[in-house]
């Protein structure tokens, strides 16, 4: 077994060697500009792009013509939200999203608010999912877009996308979903889910960084977007810029592999994730899974280890790559806003670890992580005044703390 162990597959994934092989010719031999219509170099590049477009479309049950290539999901989210907001300004100025969205959605909405749009940020319930009743109540005749992520990047919680899609359709509101963590991992069909816009990224599913896609529905309804990048009118005029042919080939190949292997891979990862959870629960008391266990990505586990601070925990398992919701691990000195939104208390956010399992995670690696984590949590709890007080029966929530 090789150290360090990578268990941060929600942050990014290594490129599958099969994807690398597919990409290689497009750096050197087949290097043409896909927009060059008058010579074989361009034709070959265009052919590769159109093949990839079909591969991406097939992964989500879409038509190839509905796929727009972008630089990644952040751009896809920006294009979808700003593009709809600008295009449908005459119809209304209200958007609905959710407090646990990725910053690429939240900050885009914040920017629109400054430009006179109104945004409703739905709260989430304790399990991390939005309330469909609150969603229905938030829709007005000025609502032009609902943007709710498919699966959360921290807690892996899957939102009721099909139900939201049905509500959006009934009310005649467009529905965008940031599906970065979900596509290629769980079944996703744009028609079954009734979504109109879908953001995807290659590097979250064993493709290269710097390339993504946006699904834009063409029928029932035909979704129009105001372009956010001006130039040569590529991608049906919605996203100008010379196509990243190599990256797009990588995204296409990654999509095809994901579609073919999803069932076996997700079953394998789910079993491993469930074992990781079960053994940690067997070894340690007072650990809590953040967010719904039922509606969750198969490869995600987010656990709070009460009375232990996340960064000190990461320091103790420094040969295991994971993330923490602790303030100390972020630049902002604020604990994870996603965990705070669950209402479990800031102290549990500080004590959280996110595990993301992936294509190359092994049982041997998990054994190592379980043992190491158990040892470190026990050691840090022996050192924790909170653990001592809790064991003495003091109610920590009733303490008056001296803060700065």
């Amino acid at each position, binding site marked *: 077994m090789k150290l360090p162990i990578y268990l941060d597959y929600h942050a990014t994934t290594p490129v599958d060697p099969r994807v690398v092989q597919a990409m290689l010719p497009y750096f050197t031999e087949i290097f043409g500009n896909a927009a060059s219509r008058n010579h074989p170099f361009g034709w070959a590049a265009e052919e590769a792009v159109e093949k990839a477009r079909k591969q991406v479309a097939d992964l989500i049950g879409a038509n190839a013509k509905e796929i727009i290539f972008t630089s990644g999901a952040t751009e896809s989210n920006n294009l979808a939200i700003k593009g709809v907001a600008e295009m449908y300004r005459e119809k209304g100025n209200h958007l609905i999203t959710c407090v646990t969205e990725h910053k690429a959605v939240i900050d885009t909405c914040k920017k629109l608010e400054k430009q006179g749009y109104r945004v409703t940020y739905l709260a989430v319930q304790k399990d991390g999912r939005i309330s469909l009743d609150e969603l229905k109540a938030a829709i007005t005749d000025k609502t032009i877009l609902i943007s709710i992520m498919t699966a959360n990047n921290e807690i892996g919680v899957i939102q009721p996308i099909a139900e939201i899609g049905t509500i959006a359709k009934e009310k005649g509101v467009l529905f965008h979903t940031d599906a970065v963590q979900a596509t290629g991992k769980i079944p996703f069909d744009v028609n079954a889910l009734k979504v109109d816009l879908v953001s995807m990224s290659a590097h979250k599913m064993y493709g290269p960084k710097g390339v993504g896609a946006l699904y834009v529905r063409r029928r029932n309804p035909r979704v129009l977007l105001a372009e956010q990048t001006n130039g040569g009118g590529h991608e049906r005029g919605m996203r100008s810029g010379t196509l990243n042919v190599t990256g797009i080939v990588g995204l296409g190949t990654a999509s095809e592999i994901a579609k073919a292997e999803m069932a076996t891979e997700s079953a394998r990862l789910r079993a491993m994730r469930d074992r990781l959870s079960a053994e940690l629960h067997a070894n340690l008391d007072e650990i809590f899974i953040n967010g719904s266990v039922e509606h969750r990505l198969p490869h995600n586990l987010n656990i709070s280890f009460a009375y232990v601070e996340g960064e000190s925990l990461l320091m103790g398992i420094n040969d295991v790559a994971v993330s923490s919701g602790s303030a100390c691990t972020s630049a902002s000195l604020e604990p994870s806003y996603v965990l705070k939104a669950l209402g479990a208390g800031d102290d549990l956010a500080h004590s959280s670890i996110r595990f993301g399992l992936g294509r190359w995670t092994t049982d041997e690696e998990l054994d190592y992580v379980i043992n190491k984590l158990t040892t470190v949590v026990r050691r840090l709890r022996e050192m*924790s005044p909170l653990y001592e007080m809790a064991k003495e029966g003091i109610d920590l929530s009733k303490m008056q*703390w001296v803060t700065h």
Partner: protein
Amino acid sequence: MAYSDKVIDHYENPRNVGSLPKDDANVGTGLVGAPECGDVMKLQVKVNPVTGVIDDARFKTFGCGSAIASSSLATEWLKGKTVDEALAIKNTDIVEELALPPVKIHCSVLAEDAIKAAIADYKAKQHEGKAEPALAGSQPNA
């Protein structure tokens, strides 16, 4: 984030982890920080009533590696010092010794606060002349 060797050493081999009897008249206890801020330090000193010298010091810390190292270092420094000498320990001394980066300065501030709170608790006990189970600066909301 890269930690200094000294922070790593204190994290991996913390000095003086543990608790002293908080009802002992010669023990001062400081409890500072808050769980929702991600840092809580408990620091205790045991003072020799004859010499006024700190014979023993213990800590328990919920916090990042730098917070653990700051409190571990503080207990090391406290042993053998008089109460007045202990009060002269500044957070900047801790920052320098552990080579803490700017984002971790609050850990050293917390350690200085913990020292001051522990000594204040000890002094209050001496003043009252009896052993009250008083946690300086933090009382349960009855």
